[in-house]
């Protein structure tokens, strides 16, 4: 394994570490209101999107983020290649990924001996959804970035998001607006 990969791995380990720390369940005091809609579950559609949610946005914020879990029950690989929302929600939507700094470029993250913990965000052209696989959009990873929000995203509302797939075409979901992950 190259040095580059080792560094990326070290960073990833630090980042991922708390996620699995001691196998805790996620019993944080989040609200556990009604199960999310945002599920498209047509019997003959290979692509299913579950648990779609967008984070509430501070009144001063111009950017928002949305997340979901995309499952491909089909036999053919697919890919999420685009995303859009109505202009009444945001000027535009893009697929983004948050990555540790060392994962996308080899600049010298000096920092404090633990990789620096620096995270970058970058636009991605597509998110693979392999046959029989799942693509997870979640905080700290892939996400839908909403740019130039038309209005703050308020808890309890929903926002309609159109996901465009290479094979499956458009899939529309209603994403819950929440303060924290479901």
């Amino acid at each position, binding site marked *: 394994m190259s040095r580059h990969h080792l560094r990326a791995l070290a960073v990833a380990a630090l980042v991922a570490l708390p996620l699995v720390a001691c196998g805790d369940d*996620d019993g944080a005091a989040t609200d556990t209101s009604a199960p999310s809609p945002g599920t498209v579950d047509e019997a003959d559609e290979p692509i299913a999107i579950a648990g779609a949610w967008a984070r509430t946005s501070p009144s001063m914020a111009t950017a928002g983020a949305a997340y979901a879990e995309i499952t491909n029950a089909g036999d053919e690989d697919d890919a999420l290649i685009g995303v859009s929302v109505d202009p009444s929600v945001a000027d535009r939507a893009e697929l983004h990924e948050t990555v540790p700094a060392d994962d996308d470029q080899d600049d010298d993250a000096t920092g404090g001996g633990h990789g620096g913990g620096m995270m970058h965000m970058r636009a991605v052209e597509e998110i693979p959804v392999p046959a029989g696989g799942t693509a997870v959009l979640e*905080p700290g990873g892939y996400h839908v970035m909403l*740019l130039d929000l038309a209005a703050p995203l308020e808890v309890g509302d929903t926002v309609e998001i159109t996901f465009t797939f290479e094979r499956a075409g458009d899939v529309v979901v209603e994403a819950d607006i929440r303060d924290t992950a479901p």
Partner: protein
Amino acid sequence: MEPRSRPLARALAGVVALLLAAAACGGDDAPADAGSASTTAAPATLHGYQREPSLEVGHVALPDVSAGGAPMAMRPPAGELLLVYFGYTSCPDICPTTMADIRVALESMPPELAERVAVAMVTVDPERDTDEVLTGYLEHFFDRAHPLRTDDPDELAAAAQAFTVQWEIEEHEPGEAYAVGHTSVTFVVDDTGTVVVEWPFGVRSREMAADLTLLLSEQEPT
């Protein structure tokens, strides 16, 4: 929940699990060290990491927008803790996730403990994060927090250096939206100005609350 579409990530998760077994959970088999009525048993451990030697940041001060720009020292009053995060408000993913997690952690704690914890966010994007923007942003998450902002790049750089924080503004055309890469760590500072624990992105609210509760118990108000 690792992204199943990314094999490398799965491999990493395995590595992480191994590291964890060796490090983070070191011998602490208690089912829950947060809030559970544990019977004075095993010494509780912190979920974040502690570096050797510890960072000393008490000498750092930055203008506090909530105090009219008066300098705020990175050293809370006796018996209290200060959480410091460097970020920016146009950040859609990491920053609001972290702020929301901190809020949930504080809300889960007894008020008499939570009120001994202050939150400060330092903007690494003062161009877009005006006083008003930064204040409004933090008000979304907290009843009271300290928006820290300086227009002096040297002052910001010196403060960031004390925390070993890095940031990098994406190249952009004037007027274009841009992202800012930044160290995504929350620093917990005690009343001596020492960083006593650091939470990388992904530490859960309940883990934050457990760490704060433990640290506050070791740092009784005078």
